[in-house]
């Protein structure tokens, strides 16, 4: 029987609903926005900015890097909202690229990116929680021996194992568990850490930075003047704004701000209202803007105001000098939390900022685990990967096997991260940033081609009415995104400042993406030999 809500007004329009079962998606648009915020990394993203830009790329303007990356982000959000609202299912880039480009690319590129995510984020997430979260807290509260142990390779590795297992638990526990962890733990950590940084910079606006620096560094026998002198010895020369160097560093931040659309890369099968373009776009834009402006741009501008751009550049130059007599002038990594401690030397400030890094580390690595498992599951459901990867727990309704395999691979990688050659490790990290951007570039390309290569799906897409003259707007946005990212990728593999020009870095990328091609053809051959036509899985079926 139907029920109804009568409306006596002229706009009466209540539906009569049958009391019958229906499909439910668990993640709200708000959850999707929070997921996106976690995916940007929050204060974790400062790791990519401190102190490298200034040291490796003279004349880089970090505020402009942030703003331009946010502009790129808006383009990316549009492309992904357009694709996601048209194809609101689990699998993300795999689904979009197989339908709009071709099957081989659509499998291999997302596969490769997920392999690199696998290599990078569980271990680096744990590292951030450890080195920028727990160690500062322990040092500040008199537990130096604990901090020292965590700083060892063994301590770092064992802690990473602990974090990876916790993240496995959050992911296998189902969306209910993850949503709670997201809402009540990780996002509050982001807010606490980011808010504290902002508050300190705002309240210490007029501080005498040189005095604060010398006071903080008295225990290290480091002085403000000493750093400037070390920088001079390292050959530091003040340079003006350099456009190219500024643009190059977008490569690094391109793996942060634009990723507030991360739910569209795997989770949309579980998002309510995912077929609503406007809501999806806003769910991506809001966290991107919060991250870009609130958590990166404003703190950086404030820091520049307090410490001075010149000194920040000198500090970084001295830190990266290969001459140990110069580098000894800076015996620690000058990261954002160090600057905050200089301005507000309180163990409670240390605690609050470190909480932000703890949230950031969990946030970025757990969202990657959640997304990657769903991508693997989607590929497996389509027969492009072994069936055991799509098995879901009857109790938890999560892809427990895929997640468990993910955890088992992440642990030895964490061992290598802690015990291995750090130069190689850094190259792999750089690869992580590039691969994150590469898959986005291909999906942007797919969105540009979407109206022409998948017209049947486009016919039902919410963005189909958005045109500029005869040109679909999604084509314009997607084309712009693909073009920008193509340039970024080119710089990533040719500019030594970004760390991917080493043999190890390039080998990691070739291995990850090459493995995708190999698996596609080998597995496809095996399935065909069993009578399974995997080509069926990506065939589009137009409505008659």
């Amino acid at each position, binding site marked *: 029987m139907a029920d109804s809500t009568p409306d006596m007004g002229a706009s009466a329009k209540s*539906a009569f609903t049958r009391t019958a079962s229906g499909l439910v998606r668990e993640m709200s648009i708000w959850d999707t926005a929070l997921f996106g915020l976690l995916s940007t990394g929050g204060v974790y993203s400062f790791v990519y900015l401190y102190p490298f830009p200034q040291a490796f790329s003279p004349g880089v303007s970090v505020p402009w890097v942030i703003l331009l990356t946010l502009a790129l982000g808006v383009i990316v959000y549009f492309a992904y909202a357009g694709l996601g609202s048209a194809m609101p299912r689990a699998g993300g880039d795999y689904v979009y690229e197989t339908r709009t480009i071709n099957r081989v690319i659509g499998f291999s590129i997302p596969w490769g990116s997920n392999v690199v995510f696998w290599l990078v984020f569980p271990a680096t997430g744990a590292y951030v929680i450890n080195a920028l979260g727990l160690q500062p807290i322990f040092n500040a509260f008199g537990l130096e021996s604990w901090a020292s142990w965590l700083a060892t390779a063994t301590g770092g590795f064992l802690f990473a194992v602990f974090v990876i297992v916790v993240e496995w638990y959050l992911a296998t526990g189902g969306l209910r568990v993850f949503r709670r962890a997201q809402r009540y733990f990780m996002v509050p950590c982001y807010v606490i850490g980011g808010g504290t940084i902002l508050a300190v910079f705002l309240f210490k606006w007029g501080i005498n930075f040189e005095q604060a620096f010398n006071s903080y560094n008295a225990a290290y026998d480091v002085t403000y003047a000493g750093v400037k002198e070390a920088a001079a010895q390292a050959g530091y020369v003040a340079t003006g704004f350099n456009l190219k160097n500024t643009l190059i560093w977008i490569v690094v931040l391109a793996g942060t701000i634009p990723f507030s659309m991360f739910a569209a890369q795997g989770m949309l099968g579980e998002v309510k209202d995912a077929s609503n373009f406007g809501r999806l776009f806003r769910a991506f834009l809001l966290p991107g803007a919060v991250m870009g402006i609130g958590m990166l741009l404003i703190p950086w501008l404030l820091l520049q105001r307090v410490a001075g751009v010149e000194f920040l550049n000198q500090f970084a130059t001295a830190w990266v000098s290969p001459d140990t007599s110069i580098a000894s002038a800076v015996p620690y990594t000058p990261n954002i939390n160090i600057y905050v401690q200089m301005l507000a030397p309180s163990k409670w400030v240390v605690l609050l900022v470190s909480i932000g890094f703890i949230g950031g580390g969990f946030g970025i690595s757990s969202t990657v685990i959640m997304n990657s498992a769903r991508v693997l599951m989607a590929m497996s459901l389509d027969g492009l990967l072994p069936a055991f990867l799509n098995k879901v727990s*009857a109790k938890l309704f999560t892809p427990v096997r895929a997640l468990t395999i993910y955890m088992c691979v992440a642990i030895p990688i964490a061992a290598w991260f802690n015990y291995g050659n750090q130069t190689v490790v850094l190259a792999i990290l750089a690869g992580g940033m590039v691969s994150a951007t590469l898959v986005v570039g291909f999906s942007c390309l797919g969105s540009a081609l979407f109206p022409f290569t998948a017209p049947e799906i486009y016919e039902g897409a919410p963005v189909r009415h958005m045109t500029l003259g005869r040109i679909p707007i999604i084509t314009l946005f997607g084309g712009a995104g693909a073009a920008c990212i193509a340039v970024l990728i080119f710089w990533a593999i040719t500019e030594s400042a970004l760390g991917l020009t080493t043999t190890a870095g390039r080998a990691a990328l070739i291995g990850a993406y090459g493995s995708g091609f190999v698996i596609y053809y080998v597995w496809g051959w095996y399935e065909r030999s069993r009578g399974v036509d995997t080509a069926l899985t990506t*065939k589009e079926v137009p409505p008659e």
Partner: protein
Amino acid sequence: MAFRKQQRAARILFVTDLHASEITFRKVLSAVEIYEASILMIGGDLAGKRVVPVVAGTEGYTTSVGGEDFVVDEAGLPDLVTRIKNLGQYPIVLGLEEYNVLAQDPEGVHARFLEASHAQCADWMKRLAAKFEPKGIPVYVTGGNDDFMSIEDILDAAPWVINAGEKIIEVIPGVEMISTGFGNPTPWNCPRDVPEEKLLEIITTMADKLQDPKTAIFNLHVPPHGSGLDQAPLLDTSVVPPRPIIGEVASVGSTAVKEVIERYQPAVGLHGHIHESRGVQKLGRTTCVNPGSEYTEGILRSAVIDFTKKGELLNVQLLGA
């Protein structure tokens, strides 16, 4: 690979829980040829879930769909009607007075539901016949627990389309199929909800007459309990209609279906009912399939089931488009 193609003698395309979604049904019409199926099976729950009043007023035509309000003029009405139909809902255009009267008349609304769902069902059967009879592709349809019993007459009367409900049919030489759209009780008291004991009796009455259950297809709308194909959100039944509790899931499949599958061990179990529980699971030697349903998104979830010339199960593959 040509060797394997010869081995595949028949391919069933199985779709279910279309719930009156026009765009999803139109994809079914295309999918048979694209997926190279030789038989089409449409599982239960053909009927839609809502009658959506589109009220003609001074501002134009107003309605609310999916929580979003619409006001369109005469030119925009066809698009709006299509949008509603694609969601699996039945648009009815009313004047304001007519709407207000109907809103106070549950029996009148029910009558409009029946009228709309019968018309939709009859239209679909006609289009299936027009599409597949010339190609000689058999089409088997069953009702589901959400379908009123009154559609049985429509299915029986449909040309070319075979109403498979509560019948034993040899769909492939050597492969018989039994089907039922009845299901175990749900919180919504759907038209074909029956107690588990009754459901067991309905199924076993057919299964006992099979020549060889081990080669058979059990086309049972509700999936087996605890199979992983029956995970649905837990419901808060203190409100009407019951509301899903986000994040809590439970096994809501049928114990009767589980018992018959475990007892008879057919080759294949075809199921639907729980849209979210797409998958393939083994219960003993039986391969149970639930292709799932995402009709509200216009996504066609389906499964292809391949058989050899000897009537042996060759392969099961889930598809989505």
